[in-house]
């Protein structure tokens, strides 16, 4: 699996080496201008998603998946490394940038750190859901159509959140946000995410293992 991650790093480094500094500077300036440092970590996590999608495109352009089938690399390693790239990108890059954002929000704008943390967790969870659901889709329908499917998947949770927000009183009249059992909701969300990760991973491995090239 380490070899596959190394391969992804070598494949993508030239594209992202220069870009990442530009992105950091650009999003930091925008976040400062907006006086909202959460913007920085959110955009950097979006950038991590772009790296994830690009990894599939790069593999497709070199017909890597077919080649990998002729080497001793196990399907679990090929798919696992791609899943790991997603998690490292979102939670690794996300954690570092969220920490910077929290420091900035507290020290520069006096915003509460819990708000920045909350935004980071919500965005990371949504991105993880979308990324992990799209993993078998990418292996099934390929990089280009997978990218399209992932874009659609991104729209769904945002539309759902806006719809639930606007329909809150009709759907859950009398229940206020504050009275919800948030620790339980977070726990259930994390459990669902773990189950989804495992199911999605196994499905992606199965698709990759049996796919014809």
């Amino acid at each position, binding site marked *: 699996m380490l070899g596959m991650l190394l391969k992804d790093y070598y494949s993508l480094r030239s594209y992202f080496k220069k870009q990442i500094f530009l992105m950091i500077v650009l999003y930091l300036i925008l976040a400062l201008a907006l006086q909202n440092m959460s913007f920085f970590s959110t955009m950097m996590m979006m950038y991590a998603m772009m790296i994830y999608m690009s990894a599939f495109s790069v593999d497709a352009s*070199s017909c890597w998946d077919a080649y990998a089938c002729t080497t001793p690399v196990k399907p679990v390693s090929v798919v696992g490394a791609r899943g790991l790239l997603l998690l490292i990108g979102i939670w690794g890059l996300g954690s570092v940038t969220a920490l910077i954002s929290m420091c900035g929000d507290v020290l520069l704008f006096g915003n509460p750190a819990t708000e920045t943390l909350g935004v980071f967790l919500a965005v990371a969870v949504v991105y993880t859901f979308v990324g992990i659901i799209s993993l078998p889709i990418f292996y099934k329908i390929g990089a280009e159509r997978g990218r399209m499917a992932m874009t659609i998947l991104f729209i769904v949770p945002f539309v759902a959140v806006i719809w639930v927000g606007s329909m809150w009183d009709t759907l859950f009249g009398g229940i206020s946000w504050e009275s919800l059992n948030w620790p339980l909701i977070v726990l259930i969300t994390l459990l669902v995410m773990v189950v989804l990760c495992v199911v999605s991973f196994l499905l992606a491995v199965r698709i990759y293992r049996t796919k014809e090239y």
Partner: protein
Amino acid sequence: MENAIEIRGLNKQYKDFALKDVTFNVPEGAIVGFIGENGAGKTTTIKSILGIAHADGGEVSILGSTPEQQRRNASEDVGVVMDTGFFFEMLRPADISNVCARMYHNWDRGLFQEYCRRFDIPMKKPYKDFSKGMRVKLRIITALSHHPKLLILDEPTSGLDPVVRSDMLDLFLDFIQDERHSILLSSHITSDLEKIADYIVFIHEGRIVFSMSKDDMLQQFAVLKCSKEQLPEIMEVAGAVGRRDTKFDVEILVDNATEVRAAFPSVLCESASIDDIMTFFAKGEQ
């Protein structure tokens, strides 16, 4: 002699193409040339051997494993060069070596570097900047640097200049010095196969036309040139498998050259090249 690859009655159906009852062997210690025109079924056969295309019927064994086992537990003993499929072109040979060292237990960094030196492949240059010849060399030396016992090469030398092709053929001949090694080499550059192949397998429209040793093939097939008037008499003896009419005479590919030469010593009967055989089968069938 053991067989590195055994194929019996392989069938594979696509919407507009089918492999039908493909049967041949790749013996240990031999180079088998796999010839056929574009779209004849060479790549599909190779993909079926490797398990990346699923056969509809028949039996395939590769170093004692089924294609499914081969794909699931891809053997360290097989080196593959496909016409498509390799590392992304931004990688440098040094990067490829680093990745392969984590993919293959037997990866030999020293050997890879030695090959790169021998074939003037720069270790620190992204291979997108390589010429076509250098790219092919890199693929082949990558396939060789984990000490495989079997090489499966799909059109590795197509589009290369004669000098590079000659380098590659020398490399294959070096590899085959070990009697446990074997090569299945698909190509339509028949002159290469005439130089190095021990056996020739000819596939045409998804069917194996023949599978035999190169020496037997060159002895068995011949191109006979005669006038149109001589033709009826010759055809009584000749096992004609193809015919080509020119303005003044007729050329016939026969598969019983010895008998024809004995029966018509005055008729011009030249040994057929692999090219002649392919062309007559593909174009000149009666």
